[in-house]
């Protein structure tokens, strides 16, 4: 067996590695700190592989181009940060309703507005879920390390292709810019999923065939001439005013994610079996939490960590279970209170406390340890 390559990489570079491993062959983007290295990396690597890189005139054009490219059959990526995410929202809704696979990376920086471009933040958690008008499905993955950015980017493409929906990779500036040694997976080592291919004759093809929960998507130009619209549509892709069809389709695009939460939700549990105090954290904050939990254990406190790797859909089940048996849950996050409300919603019994920080500095293990001690 071939040797796996080891590399010292920055988080954003690992995202490039993950995207290419997953078979991404199209990138459209607009530079913005702290995500720009992804565009730079893709611009070097894609043309070598016969892939396409384009720097568009803004973030709206970028995601629109990526959606267009995906409709021709290419796995497509766009990456951005805060202000760019705001601009992409209308197109995110379009990709949700038209069911076009797509991966969006959002490297979180301080906001709102231009905010703190070089400062870490976790303040787009709600934007990742709700950021587009209308009810729409959301999948967001929240890696905490350089290695995990690679594997979660691969998983993001897999979920996008599997469910025909946009998937967001969501991490803070610290994880995006830190350098760690990582191991590049060998070809075939990680699962790579491609969208279901249309097998029927073109005359029988419906892009939203209602016999499927997720219908196969034929590429433009392959003889299946179909219509795509952001209007509510029937299974043949054409606009409709039929209230039954509108309802059924709006429900289906939500349920195709909701019904498969177990397949999508991924968590890491540390020292939770006998825990009395739990921490729920993601990204760089989870790294501080891991350290704090270790310190607490050393001091004889029964602490543990639940780390959602899938941020959306939120791991309701795991948090509910945890909330039913621990005394307290601490939710440190780099914002003024976002994930803490999700945790409160899921855990009716345990006392839930947030630790929030928006000064552009990370939450330290000491801050978390102090909160753990208070609940002892």
């Amino acid at each position: 067996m071939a040797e796996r390559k080891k590399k010292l990489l920055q988080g954003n570079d690992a995202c490039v590695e993950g995207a290419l491993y997953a078979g991404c062959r199209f990138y459209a983007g607009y530079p913005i700190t702290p995500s720009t290295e992804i565009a730079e990396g893709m611009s070097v690597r894609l043309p070598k592989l016969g892939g396409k890189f384009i720097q568009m005139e803004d973030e709206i054009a970028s995601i629109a181009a990526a959606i267009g490219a995906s409709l021709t059959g290419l796995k497509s990526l766009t990456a951005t940060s805060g202000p760019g995410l705001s601009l992409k929202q209308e197109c995110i809704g379009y990709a949700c309703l038209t069911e076009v696979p797509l991966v969006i990376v959002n490297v979180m920086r301080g906001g709102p507005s231009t905010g703190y471009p070089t400062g870490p933040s976790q303040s787009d958690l709600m934007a990742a879920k709700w950021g587009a008008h209308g009810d729409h499905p959301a999948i967001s993955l929240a890696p905490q390390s350089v290695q995990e950015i690679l594997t979660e980017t691969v998983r993001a493409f897999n979920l996008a292709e599997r469910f025909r929906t946009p998937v967001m990779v969501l991490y803070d500036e610290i994880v995006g810019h830190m350098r760690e040694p990582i191991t590049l997976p060998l070809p075939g080592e990680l699962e790579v999923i491609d969208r279901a291919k249309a097998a029927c004759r073109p005359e029988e093809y419906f892009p939203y065939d209602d016999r499927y929960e997720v219908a196969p998507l034929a590429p433009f130009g392959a003889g299946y001439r179909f219509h795509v619209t952001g209007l509510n549509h029937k299974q043949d892709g054409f606009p409709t005013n039929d209230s039954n069809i509108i309802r059924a389709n709006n429900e289906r695009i939500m349920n195709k994610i909701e019904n498969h939460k177990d397949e999508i939700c991924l968590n890491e549990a540390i020292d939770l079996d006998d825990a009395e105090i739990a921490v729920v954290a993601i990204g760089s904050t989870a790294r501080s939490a891991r350290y704090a939990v270790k310190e607490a254990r050393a001091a004889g406190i029964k602490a543990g960590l639940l780390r959602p790797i899938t941020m959306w859909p939120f791991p309701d089940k795991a948090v509910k279970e945890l909330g039913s048996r621990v005394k307290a849950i601490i939710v440190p996050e780099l914002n003024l209170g976002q994930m803490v409300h999700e945790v409160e919603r899921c855990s009716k019994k345990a006392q839930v406390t947030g630790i929030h920080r928006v000064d552009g500095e990370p939450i330290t293990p000491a801050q978390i340890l102090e909160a753990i001690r208070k609940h002892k």
Partner: protein
Amino acid sequence: MSGTAVVEKKERVSVPFDYNKYLRPNKLPHIWCPGCGHGIVLKAMLRAIDKTGFSKDEICMISGIGCSSRTPGYVDFNTMHTLHGRALSFATGVKFANPRLKVIVVTGDGDALAIGGNHFIHTCRRNIDMTVVVMTNATYGMTGGQYSPTSPLETVATTSRYGNIEPPFDTCEMAKAAGASFVARGTAYHTLELEKTLHDAIMHKGTSVVDVIDACPTYFGRANKFKSTTHLMDVVEKDGTVNVKQADKLPPEKLEGKFLRGLLHKVDRPEYCEQYENLVMEKAKAK
């Protein structure tokens, strides 16, 4: 009726064009009002496409949002009805990802030049191979007749009841300045001329922009006191334009306030997808 007239009529009879070859008949009737110019443009476009010889599978027609942007829903190609102003961005992704597709963008003056103005100039600048058909009716038809970036000064709209004070764009001048390698203008009134212009635009390699002046009788026509659709077309499309070939022979005062029709600009300029393949990919692979 004189004998000669009958002969003339006979000579003109040809096999009627089978529009159904390209339409999705079960998606009709269309949403357009009686007298709307968009349908005339569509017919000219289908005749033009027929002459190009491209197969239906090769063509990808993409639009934004607006009355004009409803066009792709009625035609049997690979079709996409996208977001207001963004048709060119989606189209750039489609074309760049699969350069074998022949991309035609159908857009309105509001779609292309207001909300989509930035994408318009950057598409022209890249000179990516696609044909952009801008249906210029000097209004936002879909939302009920507000003024648009091509509404002439002093015209009345639902948001310019006291007369428009914003000078309009000249779409063709802008396309040319931004770098489009083929720029032409037609009208719905001069439908045969339009067919030829659209044909040449589609056959051109690079960004080809065709500004098509067509009428919105429902809003622009009524608000500005035109008696009928034909009156509106006579004033705006027939008398308001001059074919560029005749323009040379006319004194300047006869050209004042008139738009030129026909091919206005054509240059050979490297096309975006080819540049990427020939320069970027080649260099990247050699490294």
